[in-house]
């Protein structure tokens, strides 16, 4: 086996410096005239270790993490030329593999970080488009739908509607012209599952869509992807082009009567366009505003035609299910929900990144076994699931299996898979405020409860974080929240109060602390905290020079003092103090 080198070249890798590392690597290898192929691959999941270089040599797979340009020469010389791995940079080797992947099970991310996403040949070599061939040659559309039904696959966009059933509705809807849409409008703060899938394995999504189109009877489709994902868009473009060249897409696919086309629609980044009716309006060239359902898209969707919308991750599962069988897929996950779920693990976590685990895996395994636990070994406080539409769950839910039903019962949602971990330094009132501020600004403005109601809720939260809340405010925010949930037009409004409702449910005491004790125990809400310098101060003067309002005085070597009148509570002194002498009360 020839030695080959893979370099993580998804957005996460590039952001960490993969571009420079790649150039250095190529130049060094060229200089040494080594006959080694370098492949740019998608995200392997360990975003916390980017840039990553993987060397596959006859001894096995060696993974280097946090590679800097200055490390490149040594890796090339030592490992590639002399065959001696550079131990201190290795994060995984045949002798000692990285436990990051231990509880993971890769279906959706099977190719991500493994193949070159810009080369259809790599995808085909890994068994790509086999499923499409099977479907077109051996299966009737109804057989495909039945297979998906039997797989227990549920929509990965958030609501978890059974995918096979959804396809059945669209297939049954009368009409010659039908549409398929891939929803790639990933808008939750802290979520990057869809982006990574599209960057790492675009053909899996395309193949899934083509199979879906065959099952439903659609001849045209759109991928609605936000313009902020230029790399994903570029790789989709290349993928569509290559699929057309190979005859997987376009007229008479693989020589059959079946024809199908895929268009890309770049979204301008409105969160609400992830809502299916708003998304369709946006494709039609209208303002992205949701409309009442029914009629559902399966009856009356894009341009008034029956339409089936699925999320990126859902589509990416399809080829695997066809190839490996519904039974195999359903055996993974729980009884009511088959397969795996991809999560974007972020927040106060040691090893943030892309995670794929069987549905039903407990939170603790994801956060501690995969994520390596809380950053700086602080106390776990809560995890926000499902982005701004989801909820914050406390420690007592750590052993809860992550599936659609249990999360909904707990007040959160599976959502598209954002998972933000919070520690003891996070103020839950402020967290709720952060998410509500997001949804409030992203409301399309159409319906009263969402547009005005969330604004009024946010104003009440502001009162809490400023210490001017009252007991009545807790009542009125609860009332408002329940009205907004019950009476808003679309999912955005109906779920917007969730972060507030869950923090009120699990962390109500923090709200009371803000209003009765006038304290923010996490030390986050500026109006409620004071910074003081203790006698641990060594008089290094760093805080004084960092302070933007010159509120800190003191002689070098002496204890410094903060003039509270001038302090704007920015926390700069706290962050810069080398001896932790700045206290927050």
């Amino acid at each position, binding site marked *: 086996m020839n030695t080959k080198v893979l370099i993580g070249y998804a957005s996460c890798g590039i952001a960490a410096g993969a571009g420079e590392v790649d150039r250095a690597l190529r130049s060094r290898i060229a200089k040494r005239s080594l006959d080694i192929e370098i492949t740019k691959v998608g995200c392997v999941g360990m975003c916390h270790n980017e840039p990553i270089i993987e060397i596959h040599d006859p001894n096995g797979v060696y993974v280097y993490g946090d590679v800097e340009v200055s490390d490149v020469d040594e890796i090339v010389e030592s490992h590639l030329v002399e065959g001696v791995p550079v131990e201190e940079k290795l994060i995984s080797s045949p002798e000692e593999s990285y436990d990051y992947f231990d509880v993971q099970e890769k279906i959706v991310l099977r190719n991500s970080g493994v193949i070159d996403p810009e080369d259809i040949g790599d995808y085909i070599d890994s068994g790509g488009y086999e499923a499409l061939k099977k479907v077109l040659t051996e299966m009737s559309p109804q057989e495909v739908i039945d297979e998906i039904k039997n797989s227990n696959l549920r929509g990965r966009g958030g609501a978890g509607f059974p995918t096979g059933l959804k396809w059945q509705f669209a297939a049954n809807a009368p009409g010659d012209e039908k549409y398929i849409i891939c929803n790639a409008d990933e808008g939750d703060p802290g979520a990057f599952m869809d982006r990574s899938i599209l960057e790492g394995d675009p053909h899996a999504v395309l193949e899934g869509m083509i199979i879906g189109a065959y099952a439903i009877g659609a001849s045209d489709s759109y991928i609605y992807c936000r313009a902020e994902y230029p790399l994903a868009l570029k790789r989709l473009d290349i993928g569509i082009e290559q699929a057309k060249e190979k005859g997987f897409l376009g007229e008479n696919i693989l020589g059959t009567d079946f024809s199908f086309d895929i268009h890309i629609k770049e979204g301008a980044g409105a969160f609400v366009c992830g809502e299916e009716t708003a998304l369709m309006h946006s494709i039609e060239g209208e303002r992205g505003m949701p*409309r009442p359902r029914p009629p559902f898209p399966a009856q009356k969707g894009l341009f008034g035609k029956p339409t089936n919308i699925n999320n990126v991750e859902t589509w990416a599962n399809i080829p695997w299910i066809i190839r490996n069988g519904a039974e195999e897929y359903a055996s993974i996950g729980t009884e009511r929900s088959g397969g795996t779920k991809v999560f974007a693990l972020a927040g106060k976590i040691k090893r943030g990144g892309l995670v794929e685990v069987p549905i039903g895996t407990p939170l603790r395994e994801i956060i501690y076994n995969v994520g390596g636990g809380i950053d700086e070994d602080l106390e776990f406080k809560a995890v926000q699931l499902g982005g701004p539409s989801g909820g914050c769950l406390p420690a007592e839910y750590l052993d809860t299996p992550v599936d659609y039903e249990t999360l909904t019962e707990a007040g959160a949602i599976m959502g598209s898979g954002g998972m933000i971990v919070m520690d003891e330094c996070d103020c839950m009132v402020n967290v709720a405020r952060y998410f509500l501020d997001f949804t409030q600004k992203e409301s399309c*403005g159409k319906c009263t409860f969402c*547009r005005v109601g969330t604004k*009024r809720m946010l104003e009440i939260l502001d009162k809490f974080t400023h210490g001017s809340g009252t007991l009545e405010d807790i009542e009125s925010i609860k009332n408002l929240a329940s009205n907004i949930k*019950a*009476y808003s*037009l679309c999912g955005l409004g109906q779920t917007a109060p969730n972060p507030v409702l869950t923090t009120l449910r699990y962390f109500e005491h923090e709200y009371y602390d803000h209003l009765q004790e006038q304290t923010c125990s996490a030390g986050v809400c500026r109006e409620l905290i004071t910074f003081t310098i203790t006698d641990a101060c060594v008089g290094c003067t760093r805080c004084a020079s960092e302070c933007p309002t010159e509120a800190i005085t003191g002689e070098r070597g002496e204890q410094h003092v903060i003039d509270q009148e001038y302090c704007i509570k920015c926390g700069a002194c706290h962050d810069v103090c080398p001896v932790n002498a700045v206290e927050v009360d």
Partner: protein
Amino acid sequence: MSDKITVKIDGEEYECAKDGSVLDACRENGIFIPTLCEIEHIEEPFGGCRVCLVEITGPRGTIVTTSCDTPLSDDLEIRTETAEIIEGRRSAIELLLSEHTGDCVAPCSRECPASLDVQGYLAHIANGMPREAVKLIKEQTPLALSLGRACFAPCEEECRRQMVEEPISIRQEKQYAAEVDINDPWTPDVPYDTGKSIGIVGGGPAGLTAAYFLRLKGHRVTIYDMMPELGGMMRYGIPNYRLPKDILDKEIQWILDLGVDAKTDVEFGEDIHLEDLKEVHDAVFVSTGAWESWMIPIEGKDLPRVYGGIDFLIDHTLGKDIDIGEKVMVVGCGNTAMDVARTARRMGKDVTIAYRRSAEQAPASDEEMREAMEEGIRFEYLTNPEKICGCEMNGVSKVTCARMELGEPDASGRARPVKIEGEKVEFEADSVILAIGQSPEVEKLEEEGLQVEKYTLSVNDKFATNLEGVFAAGDVTLGPCSIVECTGHAREAAFAVDAYLSGVLNEYSPSEDYRLPFGYIHTDEKDEEDFADWNRIPRLKMQLRHPDERVKDNDAIEMGFKPAIAIQEAERCLECGCLDRFMCKLKDYADIYGASQEGQQGFKYEHEIDESHPWIIRDPGKCVLCGSCVRTTEEHGEGVVQFVHRGFQTVVEPAFGDPLGDTDSLMVGSLADACPTGALEEVPPSNKPGPFELDKMGDTYCMGCGLGCPTVVYGNDNVPLRLAPVRGHLCDIGKFQSIPKLVASQDKHGTIVDKKINVYASLNTTFEEAEALKELAEGTGGELYADIPDKVSTVGREELLEAEEIYVEDEALAISPVLKDLIPRSKLVEWKEDVISVVAPSSDVEPPYVVAQAGANAYGLYEMNLPQLPEQNEVLLVYDTDIPEDIDAKYIIQMVSDARDISKTADAVIPIRSWLEKEGTIKNLFGERVKLKPVVDSELPKNPLSIGKV
């Protein structure tokens, strides 16, 4: 399969159209569901306002949800009025109110204790219709004359014009209007006799007001009054120079003339008792006022020539001989003190007012204090009488007063006067009049079994006393107050009495207008800066007689407004109140669901009001984002307004934030028609818009162009002010440019004999008129001419709708904009053969086409094949149009239906009926005959040619 479905709504079963929504089913069956965003002409539900909540039991269990977007299905059970629904609706409305800016009614009206529509009557005055102004005032009070003279005008204190420079002279304006009406007063109709009777005790402002409103409800009313004449404090408390008795007499007589009985010189508790009255009447209304002067416990108060303020005024009015010597000290500085002092001054006395507080704190109006000073009355502020000196024999000789200074604020918020120890001052005085207050005579009321609390008679929130069938209002329950407070209070009490007599007192609650409670949004945040750009136009003050002159007698001092001055002053009104006040759905729903402006509060965006469009005012602060205008403009294939921004910042505005006036759309009026609030509001074709409650005058066909759209006409006092579509939409040409400025009747009789008359008729001429004109012309050897079009449509409406492809010229849509709505846009293409064209094509090929016409009866006159007018004419009769240029005629007669068309070159102008006044037949541009119906009453003859022999 049947296209009907049975649903249960509020327990009743109804058959409904199957493909509709729950909201449609309720509407179809007359069940009220509030909604701000559902417009019937647009099929797809919008689902934005979330007000149309209902409870539905169906396949999804029982849920509260919106009715507009819930389709009907079998076995639905719908409930429309549960507590949860009402709470949900209120919550939605309160959220909308929390982002709403503006004033439902102007601050003047909000401040008026009788809630008079000040903005409305000022608008009538500005529009030169003072009698309409009085009519409006008389909807709320019978005391227009008295208030015009003697109201303390709290409205002016709140008038926002003072943020520009000075408030409007509102009272004087009312006085002007009321006195225009004085000799031939507008009088409401008294309905049939209910047979119920009410005894009213006390004929002052409250009693007279109650009598008026109860009489207007058809009840029999008898007023009992202890004084020789009616009027109460208006007669005996307010001096003649302020409220002349002859004016008061006229007002009272006008009320009595409605059929109100009055018995004077009958004292309650002496000559008559409650028991007797209850025997004779079905209800008793106590409005005995507050006639007892307060006396301070001051040494010497029982000396001869020490009077109570009100006692002095009463005795003076009764013509009694009152001995007050030469030097008079009046104690107190309220309006009664001014009346006392100025009356004493008119008796030729030397008058000093002593007041223990400062001038700024005085309750009397600045105007009255200034006038008193002009008349030579001295004011001693911070001066507190401590002892009245004199003897039993010779009465008062002097008054010892303490000097005061201002200290800490007291309960009323005013700085408390504190005595400066040791500083005393003495005033020589022959008499002292204590005008410090008055109160009801509660002992008498108690003797009659009525329950009193402290100084006033107790009533509940329905104006009922402790005794069955006995109600009360005015000073006796409020303590001494003003005419306007009494009249407002008594009006509502009268409605309570009426409710009692109808057996529905339980359902009675003070009306929405009364003191304008919660439902009205208002903006407190206005200040001078908001009006910095306004032109400064000083307040026009009413002329007063010279002080030297006026102290010589007791006659009126105000000299009245001339009409031009009254109009000019009324034009200064800023029209603070919302023009949509009478049509706003948001306000209606706020009232129905008890939604309050305070229910939800928070940040509001401040929006500029866009007045750039000639007929539409756009006020984004009143927008509820229902999208009705956005969807309506899309229906026309236009995009005049659209949603912009996201979240709370979302607004509806013209593209790129341009002014609305920049649009070239001719369908903007239909957006205002669709608007449920005052966010897009049409400005009526009058000097001041009011707003007024408009009456539906009738329906006819619009003559703005050849389409002849069916239209409803709304107006006020026979003046057409607003056109609305019967179905579909009206364009701006029809809505705003075709309302005629009516030509007043003139008694002109033309007598031109033995001349050849050529008649040139407008293309709006009906068949009937054209026939008559033709006969007239041909009778003289002349002819009927018109500028008939080259061609007319060769197909009708149906073919247009069914056409495969349609070619349209922009010009056609400029002539008949509503054609836009009739053309399915998917069928619009370039010019081709075998298509319907909307204007005659210039090509030689003649496919079927529709021709847009500017003239309402162009099609009809085309069929009559009328010739073109020759250049030379002897006598030319121009009918209902402009005089054509380059035409020679010795004598031109112009018949006009719209004052705006009158030509200066006409030798004679004869008014004829406008299209809103006439009957007749026209053929629209599709060749359909439609019949015009008169919706405006006209004094002009039906047949325009009957004006004598031409």
